[in-house]
C-alpha cells in the first residue's frame, strides 16, 4: 500500500496563554523554592483554560518559567493527564480498575465506543467527547464508575475558573445514555 502521510492540523497561532492563566501560574510559583517545582501545576493551569497544551503554549510557558522547552516537554509527555493533543469538550473517563472490571467496565466501554463511534483515546467527529479510560479511580465500593469532566474551565459564582466534573457511580449499561445526556445538560444547561 502506498504510504499516506498523516495530516496533522496546524495549531491556531492565537493559542496564547492568557493573563488569567499566567496570574494563576505566578501564584503557584510562590509555593515552590524553585520555579521548576510548579511545572506540573502550571501545565495543568494552561490546560484548564485551553483544554490541552499546544506546542506554542508549551514554548510560552517554558519561557515564563525560565525552563528549557525540552525539560517542560519531557514533563508534559510523562504525565498522562496532560494532553498534548486537542481533546473534546467532555472527557469520558470510565474506570478500568479491577473492581470496576469485575462489575462491568468492559460492557460500558463497549457501549460507549458504539454509541459515540470512537475508540479509546479518540475524539468524536463533532469534537464533543474524548474517551480515555483511567486506572482505578478510588471509588471501588460504587463500581463500576466513570468520571465525566469538562476539558476547559467554567468561571464559577466566585469568579474562579474551575473544571466541573461528575463521578457517575453504579453505572448500568441501560442507564448509560441517559447519564451522558444529563452531564451534557449539567455542562451546558
Amino acid at each position, binding site marked *: 500500500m502506498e504510504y499516506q502521510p498523516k495530516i496533522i492540523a496546524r495549531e491556531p497561532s492565537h493559542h496564547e496563554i492568557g493573563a488569567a492563566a499566567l496570574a494563576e501560574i505566578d501564584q503557584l510559583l510562590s*509555593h*515552590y*523554592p*524553585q*520555579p*521548576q*517545582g*510548579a*511545572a*506540573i*501545576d502550571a*501545565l*495543568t493551569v494552561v490546560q484548564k483554560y485551553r483544554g490541552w497544551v499546544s506546542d506554542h503554549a508549551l514554548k510560552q510557558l517554558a519561557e515564563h518559567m525560565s*525552563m528549557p522547552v525540552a525539560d517542560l516537554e*519531557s*514533563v508534559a509527555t*510523562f*504525565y*498522562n*493527564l*496532560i494532553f498534548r493533543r486537542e481533546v473534546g469538550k467532555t472527557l469520558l*473517563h470510565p474506570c*478500568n*480498575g*479491577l*473492581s470496576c*472490571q*469485575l*462489575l462491568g467496565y468492559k460492557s460500558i466501554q463497549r457501549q460507549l465506543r458504539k454509541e459515540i463511534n470512537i475508540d479509546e483515546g479518540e475524539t468524536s467527529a463533532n469534537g464533543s467527547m474524548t474517551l480515555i479510560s*483511567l*486506572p*482505578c*479511580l*478510588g*471509588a*471501588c*465500593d*460504587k*463500581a463500576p464508575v466513570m*468520571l465525566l469532566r469538562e476539558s476547559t474551565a467554567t468561571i464559577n459564582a466566585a469568579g474562579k475558573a474551575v*473544571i466541573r*466534573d461528575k463521578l457517575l457511580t453504579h453505572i448500568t449499561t441501560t442507564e448509560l445514555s441517559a447519564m451522558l445526556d444529563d452531564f451534557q445538560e449539567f455542562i451546558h444547561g
Partner: protein
Amino acid sequence: MDEQRLTQPLTQHLNIDAPLTLSQYQQQNGYGGFAAALQLGPEQVLATIKASNLRGRGGAGFPTGMKWSFVPPVGKGLQERYLIANADEMEPGAFKDRWLLEGNPHQLIEGMLIAAFTLSATTGYIFLRNEYSLASARLQRSIEECYAKGLLGDNILGSELCFNLHIHTSAGRYICGEETALINALEGKRAIPRAKPPFPQVAGLWGSPTIVNNVEPFYNLPNILLFGADWYRSLGAAEDAGTKIYGVSGRVQNPGLWELPMGTTLREIIEQHAGGMQRGYQLRAYLPGGGSTDFLLPEHLDTAMDYNAISAVGSRLGTGTIIVLDDRSCPVDAILNLISFFAQESCGWCTPCREGLPNASYLLAKIESGRGEVKDLQYLKDLLELVSFGNTFCALAPGAAEPLQSGLAFFAEDFMAHIEQQCCPYQHH
C-alpha cells in the same frame, strides 16, 4: 468523647456530605492533639509516636516514629525541611484516602501540623491525586480557614513554629506513589524513583530533609497525642496497634469501608461488614491489600489483617482494601487487568520493569484470548524472576509480580483450561 469509648479515632468526625468547618472541628476538640504536642515538645512527641507503634499505611508498614527519627537534628545541614502527605491514591482497589480526605480534611492538616512541629518542617505539600477534585476543594477551603485563624503560616498559635502548607495536584501516574518518584514530581520532573541512599529523610526535596507519609498515619496522630501511646496500642485486636481503614470491593453484598481494630480477621471484614458474597456468587480468592498483593484463598479467612499475620500466609496487608474475586469471573482476565495496569504505569527507567511487564501482559492477553501455549506459562514464570526484588530499581514491578505469581499457583487449572480449550471458559456469550 472520653478515651475509653473512643474506638474509631480516624473517622469519629467524618462527614462525607458536610465535612466539619474549622470552628466545628475545634468544638469537637479538633487541633487539641496539636495543642498537646506544643505542650509536650518535639522530643516527647517523637517518643510518644514511637511508643504507640504506629506504622505506615501505604503498603510497606514502616514504623512512623523510626522513619521520623532518621531526620538529622536541627542545625545540621540544610535548614529547610519538608513534610509531604502522599495522597496520590492509585493502588487498584484502594479507596480509603478519598473517604478520609473528603470526609474530614482538618484531621489531615492537624496530623501534618503535629509532624511539622516534631520535625521542624517549614513547608508541607499535600500530593493529591488529580481526579480527587472534591477532596481538593475541601482541603483548599480548610487550609484557607487555618491561615485565617493562625493555624498555618508564621508563629502558629504564638509558638515558634512557622509552617506553610500547599496542595500539589498531580497529573497522573501510579509511580508517583513511590516516595522518591513523588519527590521528583514535586520538583517538576518526570516521576522516576531515585537511588537510595541517600534516603529522603536526609536528602529529599531539593536536597533537604524530607518526610513522606501516607494520608492515614496523619489521621492517627491527633488522638495519639490526646490520649497517649498506651490507649492507642490497646485499640489493636492482635499484634499491631491502633485501628485501620479496611475496605472491600467486588461482588459482595455491601462493598464499603470501615474503621476497625488493627488485626480484625479477614472473615469478619468480608462476611460480616461486607455482608458476604452476592447471591449466586462464591468467594474464589481475594487480594487483601490492593492490586500489588498476592492472592489469598477462602482457607485464609481466619487470618488477622495485620502486617505479620498476612505476611505469614504469603501476602501483604498493603493498603488494607480487599478486592474479592468471585467464581464467575475469569482469574486470568483479572490478572491480565492488573498486569496491564502495572505495565502501563511503569516509569520506564529500569529495563526489567519496562520490558518485563509489557511482555507478561502480552502473554496473559494471548492466553486469555485463547491463543496461549503451554510454554507461555514457563515464560511467565521466567518474567517473574526477571522483575523480582534486586533486579529492579523500585518496588513497582516486584509488587506487580505478586498477584501473578500467586495467581499462577492458585489458578493453574484455569490457565490450563484456557490453553487446552483455546478460549476463555468464563465467556458464556
